[in-house]
């Protein structure tokens, strides 16, 4: 009997049981499967029980009472997926999001997502609507083909708290370094996957672009024992830049940007913070840890966006614009 068949038989046995099932009962039901010494069959049963638990099937030990002997039970009400009562609209939008992520080619937990969608659709009466939402995450450059597999490895390592050994390409130094990382979490920003983790090489929390990882190996020793713990106050978002000025290159500088004309209603969308309004203008204040990142971004918004303060930031914008102008002016001539 193969393992899958044995586990299915166990599920059938427990779903049908009206009283707690002892290990002796299990051995009697499957003498060929749980033979050998009592110790050996106990360990085998424990492994099977753990695998069923992973599948969402908890076998729970019930103490002996006056009415019945001790043994394992499976609560049928906790086993069966109840009808979640989704409206057709809710089901459609959930399905659209899930299908888009699944088809994106690079979303961690692909198999889990596929199963979840099947289960969610189980109670649907008619066919599910076509999604009309598309997400391209596989990107370009780097080892595109390897991205999905690397995401799965990282996601597995994060969830089992096992360290990973990475070969990581730095576009800054154009070199590949090998390092050990305790992976804490993944974040998607602007279509790019980031890994946040404790870097053993640098001895600090670091953020890595998953597309720059050239190889990843998860520690396979003692798979059920965690290699590290994640600090209780850890938040992935605190370590990932959503905007170009959030890369941590220097101490934060508070910069005020004013918006005029058609940019006025877009303050929140363009800078991620609530703007204040003064007459025809909107103002946003951001803390930049990569000042040039903010200033080139402001420049790219055109004449409707201006840096108000501090003074050296204003001077730097002028300098950057002059560099662009110089690069696009023929020698000795006006544009």
């Amino acid at each position: 009997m193969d393992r899958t068949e044995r586990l299915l038989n166990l599920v059938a046995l427990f779903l049908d049981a009206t009283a707690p099932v002892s290990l002796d009962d299990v051995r009697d039901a499957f003498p060929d499967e749980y033979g050998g010494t009592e110790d050996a069959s106990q360990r085998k049963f424990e492994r099977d029980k753990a695998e069923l638990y992973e599948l969402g099937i908890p076998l729970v030990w019930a103490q002996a009472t006056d009415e019945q002997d001790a043994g394992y039970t499976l609560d049928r009400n906790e086993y069966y997926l109840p009808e979640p009562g989704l409206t057709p609209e809710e089901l459609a939008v959930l399905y659209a999001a899930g299908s888009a992520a699944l088809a994106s080619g690079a979303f961690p937990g692909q198999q889990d997502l596929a199963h979840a969608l099947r289960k969610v659709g189980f109670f649907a009466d008619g066919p599910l609507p076509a999604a009309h939402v598309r997400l391209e995450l596989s990107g370009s450059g780097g080892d595109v083909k390897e991205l999905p597999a690397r995401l799965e490895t990282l996601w597995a390592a994060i969830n089992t708290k096992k360290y990973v050994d990475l070969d990581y390409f730095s576009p800054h130094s154009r070199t590949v370094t090998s390092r050990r990382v305790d992976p804490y979490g993944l974040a998607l920003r602007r279509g790019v996957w980031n890994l946040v983790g404790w870097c053993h090489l640098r001895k600090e929390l670091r953020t890595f672009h998953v597309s720059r990882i050239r190889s990843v190996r998860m520690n396979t020793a003692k798979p059920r024992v965690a290699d590290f713990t994640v600090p209780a106050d850890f938040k992935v978002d605190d370590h990932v830049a959503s905007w170009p000025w959030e890369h941590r290159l220097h101490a934060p500088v508070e910069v005020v940007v004013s918006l005029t004309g058609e940019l006025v209603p877009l303050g929140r969308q363009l800078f991620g913070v609530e703007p204040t309004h003064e007459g025809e203008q909107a103002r946003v204040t951001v803390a930049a840890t990569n000042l040039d990142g903010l200033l080139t971004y402001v420049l790219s918004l055109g004449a409707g966006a201006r840096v108000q303060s501090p003074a050296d930031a204003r001077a730097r914008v002028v300098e950057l614009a002059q560099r662009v102008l110089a690069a696009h002016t023929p020698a000795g001539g006006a544009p």
Partner: protein
Amino acid sequence: MSYTLAFERLRRLLFLVPFVSKHPGLTVDEVAKAVGCSKQDLLEELDLLTLVGRPPFQPDDYIDIYVEDDRVYLDLDQRLSAPPRLTAAEGVALAAAAALLKPSSGGALSSALAKLEKVLPPQAMARYREMARALDVSADGPDSLATISQAILEHRELELEYVSVGKGDREQRRVRPLELFSHRGQWYLQAFCLTRNGERLFRVDRIGAVTLTDTTFPEPEGSTRQVPGSSSEKPVKVRFAPELASWQQERFGDAASLQADGSLVVTVPGDSERWLTRWVLSFGGNATVLEPEWAIRAVAEAALASLQSA
């Protein structure tokens, strides 16, 4: 997550039995598609299932599932009448996918998620919360995604305030939304614009206020899929300074050509002059347009305009 083959197989079988029980008489192909495996794999799974049962293993104690005339039937499910609940990992994967579309309170997506959390097994909740903390996609898209996706799925017209940055116009548009997609980290809405009477591509981060109307429209017949910049008739050549070369090479991949002096030359679409000039400005002098002449001039003028306003 990478699971063992036995695990994946078991998970599939625990879905397959209740699925056939609920939908008897579907073709082998339909069932294979619904459970996510090949026809050959499905037939092997059905063979295995005939061996599954419970003590005392009398004929009626086995799962009775069979194929007749290319259709799958089930007579005895041995109480496998519904799939198991979502595992913590399945719940998190679904919640993360939903987070991509920015569930807003009161919207269909967030009420769907709330209902799903209720059917997670109680013993999986702690693990679900812990895993959810490690996967963060919520900050990736604009807030209006939830409303727009709802409109697409329910075929409802949208009123939107659209600002094309640089052009200097802020307009009210009425559109029939067709498709939402994310390309290179940017969200776009493909829609039939009733104001302009034609299909248009809108950048979602340029959409201001958006209102869902009660006017519905018929299911559109296969709209044309557009990818921004996929068909450019006005190619523009841009050179990146050596210090930016490897970052940009990562982005452009094989389309970029590395020069002997360490700089990198790429070709980008110049169909939108505004986009081009803004994009070049965003590199603060480390990107230079090489040709054609009109593009060089346009960037110089944009830089001058910024200098005058600064």
